[in-house]
């Protein structure tokens, strides 16, 4: 085995690295595919806020003695409904609604924790690490990836139409609020599964960054989806390997890798910027 090949493959002799790699692949596909819709529907913040809100559900579940994962999903559901309601019914801007619902649930979670729920259980449920994924986690993630991919492919027509022009879809009789809630729930699922298996930082960045990067370079929908998956898997596998060799924590390094890939995608625009009117009107 050559030097380079050893550098690339050696780390994967450890079974925890093999697990981590499979896990990174699954989330590197599922998160960007879900994130595409978030980035185009001004839901990026939601993805992020979801990870805060989840604390409320986990705390409540731990106080009431229920399943923590279900508790987390429950608060994602509450978040989805509250945000959809606030935006649709009260003319509140998306980001304000998200901030209010997310931070409000987070505050409730912090209060719940301070009421003396079981801290052991809490930390068990709240945070993951790509190096500690178990076989159960892997099954969960693979199921998630399959579910997300399948759902997006199946519902591509309605996702496309409502993302581009929600008003038009409503004029056709589409219940866009139902779709919105469904989408937020799906995002919540990705965030909760991701945060409990590979950690919150990595899953949030994998939802946002590859999708945004793809939006910068791809000109078609198909191209955007393919590019996002490519960037997501590249960042997660590359980041995993780099973290091993640099002896740094894997989750944050993968996050940094994903952000760096966006920077690479933005470079051509930063340099030439032909597309949007130059802000200060300098000639191109």
């Amino acid at each position, binding site marked *: 085995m050559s030097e380079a090949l050893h550098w690339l493959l050696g780390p994967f002799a450890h079974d925890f690295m093999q697990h981590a790699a499979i896990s990174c692949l699954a989330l590197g596909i599922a998160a960007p595919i879900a994130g595409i819709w978030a980035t*185009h*529907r001004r839901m990026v913040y939601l993805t992020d806020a979801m990870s805060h809100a989840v604390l409320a559900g986990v705390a409540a579940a731990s106080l009431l003695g229920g399943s923590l994962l279900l508790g987390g999903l429950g608060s994602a559901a509450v978040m989805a409904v509250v945000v959809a309601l606030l935006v649709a019914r009260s003319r509140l801007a998306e980001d304000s609604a998200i901030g209010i619902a997310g931070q409000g649930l987070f505050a409730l979670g912090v209060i719940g924790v301070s009421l003396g729920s079981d801290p052991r259980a809490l930390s068990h449920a709240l945070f993951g690490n790509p190096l500690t994924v178990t076989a159960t986690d892997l099954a969960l993630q693979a199921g998630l990836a399959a579910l997300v991919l399948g759902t997006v492919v*199946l*519902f591509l*027509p*309605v996702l*496309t*139409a409502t*993302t*581009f*022009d*929600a*008003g*038009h*879809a*409503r*004029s*056709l*009789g*589409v*219940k866009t609020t139902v*779709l919105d809630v469904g989408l937020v729930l799906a995002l919540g699922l990705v965030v909760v599964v991701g945060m409990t298996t590979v950690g919150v930082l990595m899953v949030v960045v994998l939802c946002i960054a590859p999708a945004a990067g793809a*939006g910068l370079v*791809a*000109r*078609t*929908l198909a*191209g*955007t989806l393919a590019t996002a998956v490519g960037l997501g898997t590249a960042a997660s596998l590359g980041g995993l390997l780099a973290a091993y060799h640099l002896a740094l924590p894997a989750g944050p390094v993968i996050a940094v890798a994903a952000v760096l890939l966006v920077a690479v995608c933005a470079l051509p625009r930063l340099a030439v910027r032909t597309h949007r009117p130059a802000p200060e009107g300098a000639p191109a």
Partner: protein
Amino acid sequence: MSTPILAARGLVVAYSGRTAVDRVDLNVRHAELVALVGPNGAGKSSLLAALAGLGPHTGSVLRCGCTGAQPTPGIAYVPQSPDLRTAFPLSAAQVVATGSLDARRWWRRPDAAQRAAAADAMERLDVADLAHRPFADLSGGQARRVLLARALAQGPKLLLLDEPHAGLDVEAATTLNTALAALAQAGTAVLASVHDLDLVRGAFTRTIVLDRRILADGPTSELLPAVGSLAPWLVA
């Protein structure tokens, strides 16, 4: 005459105290080409949105023969300034294809007939050559024509158009009128707000003059010559 495809009774649109549309009664029948004229702020957009089932209102609206508050398949509505996420990377043809979305079966792709209807609508509005251009790159008038093509592609029984000619060049406006006339021939009803009376004369057989209330409603040929006394602002 046949039963109306659209019937409004006592329709009122009020915004926190201000009445924008006041007790409007209105019938539109198959194959009618109706122009809605009125000054800025007359309530045209408010009325059209309410008729499409998307705006707040009180009073009753019957669409395509069936009652109910919901938007009805069979109606295509193009608002004055739609709120689009143009950063979403769709081509003009993909935008037109969203016209065949099924309100219930969210997974349905356009079938052959719908694909043909989309291509035909783009031909009629003379935007077939823009089919593969990203929608975000289109000029104001080009984008408007693509959105009108999407409405045509829905194969609607009733077209509700809010200032469809605004921003179109002279040729495109004429093309649009020709396309609307052809649709009416095939039985579709059209209700469109229009400012330019030449365009009204060119294509619309019936005219409704709105200024909060309906001031006049009749055949264009009879109504427009006499409109000066009724609505002096129309001939300023």
